[in-house]
């Protein structure tokens, strides 16, 4: 622990490493890869923080966590206050500490990063959340008096849980309707156990329930009841219905057997626990040669899942170069450590099946990088005549998805954009209909957990104003 008035000391530039399971062990299990800081390491890492007077890290956080504030509490050894500080603005620290792309957000602007390595903000956030869980005493924040207003939330994913947390604390009556049989949305069906243990997701869901949030599972808003039917009972609705139909490349052979969308592949394994088939009854194939097409976090999750399911060889097929991979650097590193082979500058043009319609080969083109395109990344250009084939017995398409179509299809008067997402005002997350708000993948298509939570936070503030007739 630091002294009252620390002597002016040299800045410690060495960022503390977080222990991980060894690659040769972890490829045989679905347990969490990153093991978290011990107390000693957390305090050492936290002590590196300069406690900037005008911190830049806060600005990089979509939910505006007071980062130097919670880090200071770690240095002081007052972890309970640290947890409280985070929870002022973030209901799901154990999750964000694990899956947020900190290197693109808070850690990107950390002053120490200019010297050598930024503070490991995500790891410290995770440390506090795990400390609180291990203590077993989850604190309930002070709750406002009941307002008598009723709010319905569609989807128990990161956006919906954030809205529920914020609005119940403000005294509103909150009910979540979840389509699947388990809560958590993408945290449950999409992100694998080895990156985000499901026990942690369940813990966070139990927490919002303990605050008084009611949750109905197996309830598909738009189908079981429409949004307009719910509005007969509720004063306001937040739609966080998440991801929808997976995208395919629209190349020949994508409907062959053995070709999966990443959504399907990961849902079989994560939500349905197919990796424990036949104890859990949803089967998942265990092919020996797997190609994953795409370069984002979902692609990494799929490739690393395939490795754990016993594949001999897993290739990641990506059309740009390694520098352009949209996945987090940490996930690419983990994937490579686990033996995933990167086939960069490679574009699938056709999938070839056998006489029983099972995929057997991918035909690809080699690519080269040209001038930067609209995304600022160098455009991949196919090299004429560079076609070649690789043998695979499974292909996972991880190239994104559109927003879920059910609510746009069944809610008249809701403005929808060209990609099928609900149009909202970015400052309020409010839709074209005055008592409907929306956020997360249903607005953005495929986005991140934290941006969905950021939308939820904005929506909750706007909904609160509306419910209290402040506008």
């Amino acid at each position, binding site marked *: 622990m630091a002294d009252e008035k620390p002597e002016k000391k040299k800045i410690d530039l060495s960022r503390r490493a977080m222990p991980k399971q060894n690659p040769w062990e972890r490829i045989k299990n679905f347990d969490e890869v990153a093991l978290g800081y011990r107390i000693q390491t957390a305090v050492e890492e936290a002590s590196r923080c300069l406690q900037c007077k005008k911190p830049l890290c806060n600005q990089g956080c979509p939910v505006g966590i007071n980062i130097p504030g919670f880090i200071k509490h770690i240095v002081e050894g007052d972890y309970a206050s640290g947890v409280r500080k985070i929870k002022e603005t973030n209901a799901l620290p154990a999750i964000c500490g694990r899956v947020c792309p900190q290197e693109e957000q808070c850690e990107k602007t950390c002053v120490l990063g200019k010297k050598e390595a930024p503070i490991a903000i995500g790891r410290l956030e995770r440390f506090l959340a795990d400390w609180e869980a291990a203590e077993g005493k989850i604190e309930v924040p002070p709750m406002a008096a009941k307002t008598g207003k009723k709010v319905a939330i569609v989807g128990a994913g990161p956006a919906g849980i954030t809205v529920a947390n914020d609005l119940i604390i403000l005294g509103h009556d909150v009910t979540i309707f979840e*389509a699947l049989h388990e809560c958590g949305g993408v945290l449950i069906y999409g992100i694998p156990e080895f990156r985000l243990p499901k026990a942690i997701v369940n813990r966070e869901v139990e927490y919002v329930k303990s605050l008084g949030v009611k949750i109905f599972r197996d309830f598909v808003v738009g189908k079981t009841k429409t949004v307009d039917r719910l509005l007969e009972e509720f004063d306001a609705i937040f739609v966080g219905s998440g991801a*929808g139909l997976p995208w395919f490349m629209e190349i020949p052979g994508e409907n062959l057997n053995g070709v999966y969308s990443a*959504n399907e592949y990961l849902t079989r394994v994560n*939500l349905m626990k197919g990796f424990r088939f036949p104890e859990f*009854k949803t*089967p998942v194939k265990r092919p020996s040669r797997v190609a994953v097409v795409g370069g984002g976090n979902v692609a990494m999750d799929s490739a690393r899942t395939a490795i754990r399911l016993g594949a001999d060889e897993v290739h990641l097929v990506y059309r740009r170069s390694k520098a352009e991979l949209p996945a987090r650097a940490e996930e690419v590193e983990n994937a490579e450590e686990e033996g995933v082979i990167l086939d960069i500058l490679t574009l699938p043009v056709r999938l070839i099946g056998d006489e029983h319609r099972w995929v057997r080969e991918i035909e690809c083109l080699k690519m080269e990088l040209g001038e930067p395109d609209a995304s600022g990344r160098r455009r991949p250009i196919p090299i004429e005549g560079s076609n070649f084939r690789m043998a695979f017995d499974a292909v996972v398409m991880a190239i994104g998805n559109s927003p879920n179509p059910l609510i746009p299809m069944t809610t008249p008067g809701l403005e929808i954009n060209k990609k099928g997402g609900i149009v909202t005002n970015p400052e309020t997350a409010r839709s074209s209909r005055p008592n409907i708000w929306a956020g997360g993948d249903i607005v953005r298509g495929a986005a991140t957990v934290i941006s969905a939570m950021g939308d939820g936070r904005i929506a909750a503030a706007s909904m609160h104003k509306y419910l209290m007739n402040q506008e």
Partner: protein
Amino acid sequence: MYKVIERRMIVPNLHEFTVEAPAVAESAKPGNFIIVRPDQYGERIPLSVADWDRDTGTVTTIFMQVGGSTARLARLKPGDTIPTFVGPLGKETVIDRFGTVLCVGGCYGIGSIYPIARALKQAGNKVYTLLEARSSFLLYWEDKLAKVSDRTFVITRDGTKGRKGHIDKIPEIMQRAGITPNLVIVNGCTFQMMRVSMITKPLAWKTIVNMNPIMIDGTGMCGVCRLSVGGKTKFACVDGPDFDGHEIDWEEFLARRKSYNPEEVDPLRSSSCRSHY
């Protein structure tokens, strides 16, 4: 948890399954399906709705026992509970005043064609119902269907009831009865829906089929239920399950449906002896 009100084998291997699910009953429409999980380890399996009662809040489906999950459904007794019974999912069958409609049912589809026939009748159509089974002892709900149909026809493979033969006899039966349908709607096994579509195509009888692919979430997220319709990929859970039978790539659909056959049957094996495989 959802309470099982009734689960009985109505004909060999086909079960009538009624569950208390008031919210589903309230919104159920002909052509919808529900997704059920027999227990906490269970798969999510889609079943077409065959009937519902808004007053008692119950929904009835008919399922065939084929694999591990349906075997576990088949062991449920009234009063048991199941963890998931969610719906109604999918677009409902379009009900309009078409004129003369031929409703074809087979297997579990004899059940799910019933609410379709009933709604078509109420909408003022002339409704003819044709049921197909291997033998007369596999037919059920004939009386229910007769009440909502202008006339009912039966084809059995062994000739124990109605016309002897296959579903291919449809044009002949219709011709003899002097019926030219404006629309044919088929609910049944994939093979039956495919055969009817192939037979009606040269006759230019518009044919709607209620597709039954493998599903997981059933809400437009996972994409496993995709099929090619008119050369385009469609998702049965949100774009269907009803599609124009003349536009479907049936070979692809059949192959995709069979992709988990080994895993479906594996859990049923109680012996590891090779000769039992």
